[in-house]
């Protein structure tokens, strides 16, 4: 539904379409509530000590990723997008990860120590 039918000025068809939009609205509200809950969860989790700081970071990032995923999938309609957009994003994702991962590799792959 993110890409609406080509605008026809036919009011009847539009009525139907608007009805479809109406149905999504509840979904948006629910996702919004979910995001708020998750925010609270992240804060709460940060007070819990999971042993190492790494574990805490990992868990917090996991929750953040879930939240970001929800925003992207629902609010940004990525759950049902055209293939072209996915392609652009896949390459982008690949390159950011490449940027990060290769620097990381170079960072630690030093002779003896740095």
């Amino acid at each position: 539904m993110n890409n609406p039918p080509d605008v026809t000025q036919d009011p009847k068809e539009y009525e139907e379409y608007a009805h479809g939009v109406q149905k999504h609205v509840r979904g948006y509200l629910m996702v919004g509530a979910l995001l708020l809950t998750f925010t609270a969860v992240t804060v709460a989790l940060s007070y819990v000590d999971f042993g190492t700081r790494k574990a805490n970071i990992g868990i917090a990032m996991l929750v953040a990723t879930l939240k970001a995923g929800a925003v992207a999938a629902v609010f940004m309609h990525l759950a049902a997008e055209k293939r072209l957009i996915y392609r652009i994003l896949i390459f982008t994702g690949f390159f950011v990860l490449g940027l990060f991962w290769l620097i990381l590799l170079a960072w630690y792959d030093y002779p003896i120590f740095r």
Partner: protein
Amino acid sequence: MEIPYTISTRPDTGLWNAKIGIWLFLASEVMLFGALFSAYIFLRIDAAPGTWPHGLLNVPVGTGNTAILIVSSVTVVLAWAALKMRRYRVYWWYMLATISCGVIFLTVKLAYEWPQKFEHFGAYIKPDALGKYEKYLGNERRAEKGMEPRIEITGHLHSQNAKEYEVALDPVNADPDNPVMDRPHFLPLPVTDKIATIEKEDVERATMFLPTHSAYFASYFTITGLHGLHVLGGVLVFIYMWLPVSKRLYQRNPEHLANRVEVSGLFWHFVDLIWIFVFPLFYLL
């Protein structure tokens, strides 16, 4: 001459122009913030023991701001949905709500959070003087528990003379051996009235909580500043789409306005999405 596919979709891609444009732009934004976050992570894993501050930000305020951004994301999709259903008034109100959220977010950030940092003071103690300030640092206990040493004393700068700083201590330094302070979220706790005297001779570097303070605050101010600029940009665009001109466009071609709102909404969600990572990274960990 009119450019094709500004409103309708091109059959073989199924998309209109601005939709592709905004996603390409967001792709570049992903690279921009991706690089900044990468830099943050590298600086962090490289930080010398004790130089990476923890828990210096105001968590309740940060949480509130996060909630505000999330709400604004919801209102902006609702605004768009209202347009799709051709309810301009409803759209107008949701837009107003979105704009207000953005403005509140910025106000909290610029008028409260940042200035609060600027007032805070920290003094890094020279390695060989650490023992002298053990009662504020609690390093013996920390060493036992295998934690990084504390090398900084923070609080409000009460007064200073040529030789000494007088600092109204933060709770961490006032009560350093309290286990609660091992994972401090202390800024909501007010500065204590316990005053410490620190000799300037023992201080390696003393600064307010400015970008100069540490790699942490440098990243904090840079990333939240850049994020703030994005919020500001979004708010300005939304204001434009909320002003009476939008009504005229709506009357001419409602779908055109809906497309514009969708595109700027995508940008807004992205800004929200960035914040979702900024918040735990800087405030909580």
